[in-house]
């Protein structure tokens, strides 16, 4: 399941070539899968059924920026952080900021409806995509959405974002740009227990504040990050909170004060406010390097992505740690605490005999616990291949069939990234002839 095999790989340079690739795949009776930078964590771009892999990385032009309207038009292969850098001089940025933003593409972000720490206040990708030009599974080109605030008929743009490549390939994306806040303050709070940190998160929200970002890291991850980045994260804390507030002077001052008060009321040992941009960037580098820092600890990791209601965070964390202990696995946690999006990280050595079974078992149990707590399977990574067969934990057979019919409306023949997202049986005419299953000598 971790590896895939492609029939062929192509690197189109523009939308016409993408359409030509899709039509070529159709002519040869082969499915297709789009791929950006391949940073996806759910296997959404893993080639299954020997498809034609259509890589968008050569389509990396920023086509237009309208500063007055705060709109940009990009090709799908533009890297997320490159877009923000390109418009920084205009006092603008592109808000969805996944940890992988140095490497991931806008097209990939659209496919997964990517989030990131700053989506707590500003929304995920779907809230920032105004329009997409899409090559559909039949090779025709469609426009979903537009520059006007509303388009007549159904929100096909909204359905396409997050459809993980199963509805077509985005060849042009129109995005909203966000003005940079005049004032930003980034704070690091450290705690002697995870419960205190989680209680602080709840306290902040209950006090009527939605920070620009609200991230939590447990002791293990904090130590790993500090060893790697040296940003001054306390190595002896049980948990740290990275909180960012932005806006205008008065509001920011009041919010910093509130975070400080709530934190101290829940046992925060230190409350540190970054003094300048350099310190702020270092703190964020620490947070965003969390997964890379793991490499210094063990050769393999399995990163999970699930969401629970914020109020259930502490209970679910206890379950997460106890599952890890039972399976004798090292577990670390970093998460978007503000919106209950957990990223339990199981750290291990894949060469250890029998470890993969324990890792998968732990993962399933963690996801089950999250669903039981009223959460969902994926907060931002997507379902892809990884969680496809767990979809029935969250959705009934009727729900899955309805989703299957929706995808079928876009892709009646099931050739756009087949076998992803929905489990077998959810779609009509599920039997997609895989080349591997065609007898030798047969001619298609």
């Amino acid at each position: 399941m971790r590896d895939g095999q492609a029939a062929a790989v192509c690197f189109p340079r523009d939308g016409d070539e993408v359409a030509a690739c899709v039509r070529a795949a159709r002519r040869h009776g082969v499915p297709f899968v789009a791929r950006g930078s391949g940073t996806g964590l759910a296997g959404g771009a893993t080639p299954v059924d020997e498809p034609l892999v259509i890589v968008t990385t050569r389509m990396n032009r920023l086509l237009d920026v309208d500063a007055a309207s705060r709109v940009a038009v990009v090709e799908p292969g533009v890297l997320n952080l490159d877009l923000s850098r390109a418009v920084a001089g205009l006092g603008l940025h592109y808000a969805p900021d996944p940890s992988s933003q140095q490497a991931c593409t806008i097209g990939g972000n659209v496919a997964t409806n990517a989030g990131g720490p700053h989506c707590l206040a500003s929304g995920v990708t779907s809230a920032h995509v105004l329009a997409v030009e899409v090559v559909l599974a039949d090779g025709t080109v469609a426009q979903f959405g537009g520059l006007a605030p509303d388009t007549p008929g159904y929100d096909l743009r909204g359905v396409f974002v997050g459809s993980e490549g199963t509805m077509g390939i985005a060849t042009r994306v129109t995005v909203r740009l966000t003005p940079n806040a005049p004032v930003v303050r980034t704070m690091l709070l450290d705690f002697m227990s995870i419960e205190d940190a989680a209680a602080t998160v709840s306290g902040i929200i209950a006090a009527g504040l939605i920070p620009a970002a609200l991230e939590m890291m447990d002791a293990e991850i904090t130590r790993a990050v500090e060893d790697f980045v040296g940003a001054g994260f306390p190595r002896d804390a049980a948990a740290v909170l990275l909180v960012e507030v932005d806006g205008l002077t008065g509001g920011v001052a009041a919010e910093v004060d509130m975070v400080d008060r709530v934190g101290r009321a829940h046992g925060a040992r230190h409350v540190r406010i970054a003094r300048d941009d350099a310190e702020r960037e270092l703190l964020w580098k620490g947070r965003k390097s969390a997964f890379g820092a793991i490499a210094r600890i063990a050769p393999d990791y399995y990163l999970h992505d699930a969401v629970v209601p914020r109020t259930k965070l502490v209970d679910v964390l206890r379950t997460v740690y106890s599952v890890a202990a039972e399976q004798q696995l090292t577990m670390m946690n970093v998460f978007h605490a503000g919106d209950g999006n957990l990223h339990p990280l199981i750290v291990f050595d894949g060469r250890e005999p029998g470890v993969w079974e324990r890792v998968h078992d732990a993962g399933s149990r963690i996801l089950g616990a999250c669903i039981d707590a009223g959460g969902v399977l994926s907060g931002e990574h997507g379902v892809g291949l990884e969680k496809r067969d767990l979809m029935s934990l969250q959705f009934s057979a009727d729900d899955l069939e309805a989703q299957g019919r929706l995808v079928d409306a876009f892709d009646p023949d099931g050739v756009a990234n087949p076998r992803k997202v929905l489990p077998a049986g959810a779609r009509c005419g599920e039997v997609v002839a895989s080349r591997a299953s065609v007898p030798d000598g047969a001619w298609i």
Partner: protein
Amino acid sequence: MTTTAVIDAATPVVRALCDTIDPIVISGADTHGDVGNPVAAARIATVSIASGVVAYDPDDMTVTVLAGTTVGEVRALLGEHGQEVTLDPRSDTATVGGTIAAGLSGVRRLRHGPIRDTVLEVRIVDGRATIIKGGGPVVKNVTGYDIPRLFVGSLGTLGAIVQVTLRCRPSAPVRAWYRVERDATGAAALAEALYRPSSVLWDGAGLHVLLEGHAEDLTAQAMAAGLGHADVGEHAPELPDAAHRGRISVPASRAVDVGHALGALDGVHWTAELGVGTIHVACDTAAALGAARAVAERHDGWLLREAGGDGIDGFGTAIPNRALAARVKAAFDPDGRFAPGRIPQ
């Protein structure tokens, strides 16, 4: 797991689907009944959905209600905890289900985003009389396909919305509407000078600006933007109202031009949401509404009929991606039982 509340609320819809062959129209408070096209049928089965708050967790920032619950009731409940949802219909008597199905965002869209970003989960009855859940009950979710967004603005054509879970947010500590006279250039300049205003409404002569936040920031912003001598009030300005109403949608950069063009027409009253591109239009005659639509279409936009406008099509412009849209409709409602013709196919 489908709850008793949902099953009970869904029952009248299921009955209508099974006991009659008439097209089904869900009726709430009858506030959005004329949006789009009329249902193409001589006889209609009208069904109402029950109201009731199913769950509200201020700490989780979500509220779940049956679709027949009024927006006013939700506003009051959330207000007790200093929270709100981004549903701003013209009248608080509108139901949550109706407001979502109509998909008409309110005048604070500039800051708080459109209605579609508010809906987290929907439970619907589809054309096969099956209860379907789409989305998820938490504020962050990408599991499966975005059926909630599909239902926003679907005008009851894909199924009956029975229950919804909405994203809440804390209300700002202070809010104030500022009113000043400004021409087009002044209006645009003022909008530019503000950091994330909640609403900037312009009717050709006057500007109404909503600022929300901390008191000292409002004062500082107002001063810096030249609103120092503005009339300040708590209440939103009245949107234009007349027998024939519609909503123009154009790229935000065209809104001022559209305003000028509308101003030159007889019998057209309008208010533009600067920075958004929505222009609210109310006309004395259906013909004037048609003329307003022509203006919208000349500016890369379109006009949605909201009320009156006899003889005027609900949408005017061709619905994009018709074949695909028809397949999406058929996916949920294969026999065309729900509000046929409300959205042309």
